[in-house]
């Protein structure tokens, strides 16, 4: 028997072996290599997402901490500033304060007429009309002290008129101030 005859007789085994190997390769590609490639690609995408999300979370947490520190400072500022601003319920004490300053400044008050409170945007405003008598210097002193004590008001009008045919330094005084008050519920 020649060698070629022998080879032909073993060809069926080789064919089956090659077939088995090819089947293994196909199954391997389908079950292993393709899923590995897909997993690897997914992993890269997920890793990128995780890195981005982690960095974003870190930044956001840092931003939130910064915000919260700022908020605390802002709340403190609002509270301390609000405490200084008169509220709608404090009109009578402001009037007492104003008349006390006027008397301290040697002004004689003839009338004090607070007008009804009204809403003016974010504020409640009350105009107070006052008539009195005193020297212009005392009146300026009064304006200065009142402005220092309560800067949350504005002089709406004012009339200083020297008494006619008199050598006295006293003047007829009339003025109106507008008190700016914070509405109820805005207390610090």
């Amino acid at each position: 028997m020649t060698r070629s005859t022998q080879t032909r007789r073993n060809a069926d085994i080789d064919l089956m072996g090659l077939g088995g190997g090819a089947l293994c390769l196909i199954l391997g590609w389908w079950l292993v290599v393709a899923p590995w490639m897909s997993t690897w690609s997914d992993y890269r995408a997920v890793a990128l997402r995780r890195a981005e999300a982690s960095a974003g979370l870190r930044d956001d947490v840092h931003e939130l901490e910064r915000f919260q520190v700022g908020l605390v400072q802002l709340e403190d500022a609002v509270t301390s500033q609000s405490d200084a601003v008169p509220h709608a319920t404090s009109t009578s004490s402001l009037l007492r304060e104003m008349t006390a300053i006027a008397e301290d400044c040697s002004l004689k008050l003839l009338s004090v007429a607070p007008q009804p409170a009204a809403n003016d945007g974010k504020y409640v405003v009350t105009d107070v009309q006052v008539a009195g008598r005193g020297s212009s210097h005392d009146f300026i002193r009064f304006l200065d002290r009142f402005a220092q004590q309560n800067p949350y008001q504005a002089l709406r009008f004012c009339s200083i008129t020297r008494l006619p045919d008199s050598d006295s330094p006293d003047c007829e005084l009339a003025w109106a101030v507008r008190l700016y008050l914070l509405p109820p519920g805005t207390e610090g």
Partner: protein
Amino acid sequence: MSAGVNLVPHAFLRARRRSRRRNAWLAVVAATAFLFLMGWGGQRLAAHALHTVEYQVENIEQQRSDVQRQLLMAAGRRSELVDQLRTVTESRRPQPWAQRLTTLTDVVPAGVLITSIDIGTGGRVVVGNRRPPRGPANTAANATDHNLQPVQMRGHALDHGALIQMLNTLQQLPGWTQVELVRATLGPFRTGAAVAFELDCQTLEDVQ
């Protein structure tokens, strides 16, 4: 002299060769299958690990979305507080009049007696220079919003010179604008004669 004779039947030899070849092929296929099996197992483990990482990412994204929601709330609270602070600080009004009247008494020249000052209720205007309410030039780039208050002054001056000096001085004072002489008439005053005058001015509320 010796002679070798192969007594093993030829068919047996052939069957053994076939068997070896089949075993070789089986070994190759089995090794390949084993490698792939190992690969498949590794892939399953990797897929599981990937799921874990995905779960972590979802957690991080959930946390991030919570933090962002808190940030939004904090931003809302901040703008609310800024608004409150603005309201509170803007309720503090300019207080120019004590200083302004003090300056006025200081700069009134000798020979001028002011007998009355009336400060009126003003209104907001946009001004672009020292002489505010006239002309369309008020929309200039340096225009600002001011609250103007009219002031009327009456009094007596010894002569026109003193009156003009006072007029000039008033025009130079910061915060005073549109100083206009309305009336100046010479007439009797007490035991002699004096110029009775009336001035109309405008003042800027927020300039001392």
